[in-house]
């Protein structure tokens, strides 16, 4: 009989129903996957201060469209949903929630920017949604213990510093290294990387000196490092300061035996030319991507594959922009994960396969560099090759060096 009590109970249940906590995913969470499509979520700064990186997202739109036009992937359409966050963390949170809760994507792929990813990392892990191959060089994405659903892609700044330190030890076991670093996350990753390799010898061998982004110049820091008797130098600075450093080191007549510079600041137009190309001769950096303008890759099969793809799918795009090489490579890496899934596109299995890559060759990576991950290794790319400035261009030399992480 319908009396007031049953009515109340029914009413309470009706209200409590939608209020109950979201159900935790079962063994196989197939959200975003149907018989004929897989939904992929993506966030890029198509507008705002970092919009130059928007081309990475544009290539990926064309990439997945190309696959769908050719019949899809194993009979499924890859539905690539990409939104703009304008490089603003609050907007990134909104877009991530939109993708996960409203669009119900299977996973997020190649979301760009350290601040934006920091803002959404905890959310992604709470929801147990794969947060794959982030487009940022920070080292903190490799933290499987606390954030098992988040994994980076490119070599981190820390890995690069490890590679520099390894090379330095090989060249001169007793070198005295001065580090000039920007006092933030980016700069500190380099100090930590060198520490990883030198261990207890760090204090004796290294003189770290920092500068602030707000400083006008780094002249006094350079002079200080010289007067401390350093004979090697590592510059972990953004382009403007890197150019100043190269010029100052040269102008005060200091000739360190080795001068490493972060791959953030190797642009010919923004760093080497303003510094004076002749003043930077001998400066060393590290690379993992094939530079599209490097004549050495003119007939490289991997880069030719990319060129062919570009001609077909993005004929109007600027082929000298390295971001397209990067984007094509990371998309290829994503396809390898989906292939490895072998038809099981549950979130658990996608994450499992993303962390079970072994020696995957990607056309955009310098030949020999491969992508490898495991349940405990969340650093997909750990190898780089050094390159030296010869006054005109960066010339790669030596073999591949692997970081420690």
């Amino acid at each position, binding site marked *: 009989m319908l009396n007031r009590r049953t009515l109340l109970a029914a009413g309470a249940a009706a209200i409590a129903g939608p209020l109950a906590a979201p159900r935790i995913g079962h063994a196989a969470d197939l959200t975003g996957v149907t018989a004929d499509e897989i939904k992929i979520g993506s966030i890029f700064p198509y507008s705002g201060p970092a919009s130059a990186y928007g081309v990475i997202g544009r290539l990926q739109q064309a990439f997945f469209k190309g696959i769908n036009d050719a019949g899809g992937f194993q009979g499924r359409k890859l539905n690539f949903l990409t939104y703009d966050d304008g*490089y603003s*963390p609050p907007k990134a949170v909104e877009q991530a929630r939109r993708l996960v809760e409203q669009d119900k994507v299977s996973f997020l792929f190649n979301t760009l920017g350290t*601040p*934006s990813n920091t*803002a959404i990392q905890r959310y992604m892990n709470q929801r147990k949604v794969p947060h794959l191959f982030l487009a940022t060089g920070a080292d903190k994405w490799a933290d499987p213990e606390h954030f098992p659903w988040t994994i980076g892609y490119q070599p981190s700044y820390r890995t690069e510093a490890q590679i520099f330190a390894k090379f330095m030890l090989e060249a001169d076991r007793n070198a005295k290294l001065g580090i000039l670093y920007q006092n933030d996350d980016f700069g500190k990753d380099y100090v930590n990387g060198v520490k990883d390799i030198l261990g207890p010898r760090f204090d004796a061998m290294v003189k770290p000196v920092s500068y602030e982004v707000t400083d006008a110049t780094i002249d006094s820091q350079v002079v200080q490092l010289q007067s401390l008797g350093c004979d090697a130098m590592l510059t972990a600075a953004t382009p403007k300061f890197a150019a100043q450093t190269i010029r100052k080191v040269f102008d005060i007549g200091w000739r360190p035996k080795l001068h490493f510079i972060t791959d953030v600041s190797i642009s010919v137009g923004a760093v080497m030319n303003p510094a004076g190309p002749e003043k930077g001769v001998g400066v060393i950096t590290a690379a993992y991507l094939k530079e599209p303008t490097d004549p050495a890759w003119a007939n490289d099969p991997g880069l030719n594959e990319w060129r062919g793809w570009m001609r077909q799918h993005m004929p109007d795009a600027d082929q000298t922009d390295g971001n397209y090489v990067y984007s094509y490579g990371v998309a290829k890496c994503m396809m390898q994960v989906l292939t490895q899934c072998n038809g099981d596109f549950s979130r658990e299995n996608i994450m499992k396969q993303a962390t079970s890559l072994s020696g995957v060759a990607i056309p955009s990576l310098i030949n020999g560099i491969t992508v490898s991950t495991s349940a405990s290794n969340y650093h997909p790319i750990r190898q780089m090759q050094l390159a030296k400035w010869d006054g005109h261009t960066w010339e790669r030399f030596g073999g591949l060096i692997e970081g420690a992480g």
Partner: protein
Amino acid sequence: MASETTTPTVLASARPARPALRYAGLLWAIGIALLLPLFTAESYRLFQLTLAAIYAIAILGLNLVTGYNGQISLGHGAFYAVGAYVAAIMMDKFGLPYWSTLPSAAVVCGLVGYGIGFPALRLGGLYLALTTFSLAVAVPQILKYKGIEEWTGGVQGVLVFKPDAPFGLPLSNDQYLYLLTVAIALGVFLLARNLMASRIGRAIMAIRDHGLAAEAMGMDAARLKTSTFAVSAGITGLAGALSAIAVEFVSPDSFQVALSITLFVGMVVGGVASIIGPAFGGLFVVFVPNLAEEVSKAAPGVIYGIILIAFLFVLPGGVAGLLRRLAARLHR
């Protein structure tokens, strides 16, 4: 307040008796409209509506100083940022409960606003706009400053946690936060409405309309202007604190210059010198950019611009102006 003694009292008594019944009906309708999403919207929509309510509060703050008092501010994003950081630092570094951060953020921003209000006295119109704009430009960089990095986390920012619903209420975090934000918004809107309907409110507007005449009538323009700036900054700071809690993260990149412009756009679209207008402004700045992106992926900025211009063309007085016109027609 000096103005109290001089404001003519005739105006206050000239108001007709309230049609109480119609107001009650309107209030019920508003209440149901605000509560409805709680039960019908998915948590992502609730989050967006929460953001819209937060922006509405921030825009209301801006409207007090710019709309009602005529001091153009293009830098209210700075107060929003300060409020957000006050909340984040109190929660993360001192482990204080989220609710205690809200009044604190309002007070801190009120004091900062008071400090800004003083030099603002000497600057009129466009000069004030530029000065406040420079504040908005400076704040993200100041937040990265090394000396305060221990508190602000530098470029890294600060992560905070969303509160759970208190008293074991069967609400998710998103639902609770929506309810809390809407309740605070209602409170702030009511206070602002009462303030503007008071003698002080009329003095604030009199200074905007004719400063010299207002002063000649004995109003203390300097004091009212700085106080208005302080109240305005405090309200926007409160919104900033709520945003830190809703987004669970603050960083210098969260408060770029564009934020101040966004608040300004929201104010104009909603209706300058209107209390209810900012509510529509908040909805506009949250939902229209997404709408623009859905219409065109290639040039969402163009679409946004077109929608904005269309809005200003069709609704010259903002949404509030339209409502006013509709109400006037009904009354006839």
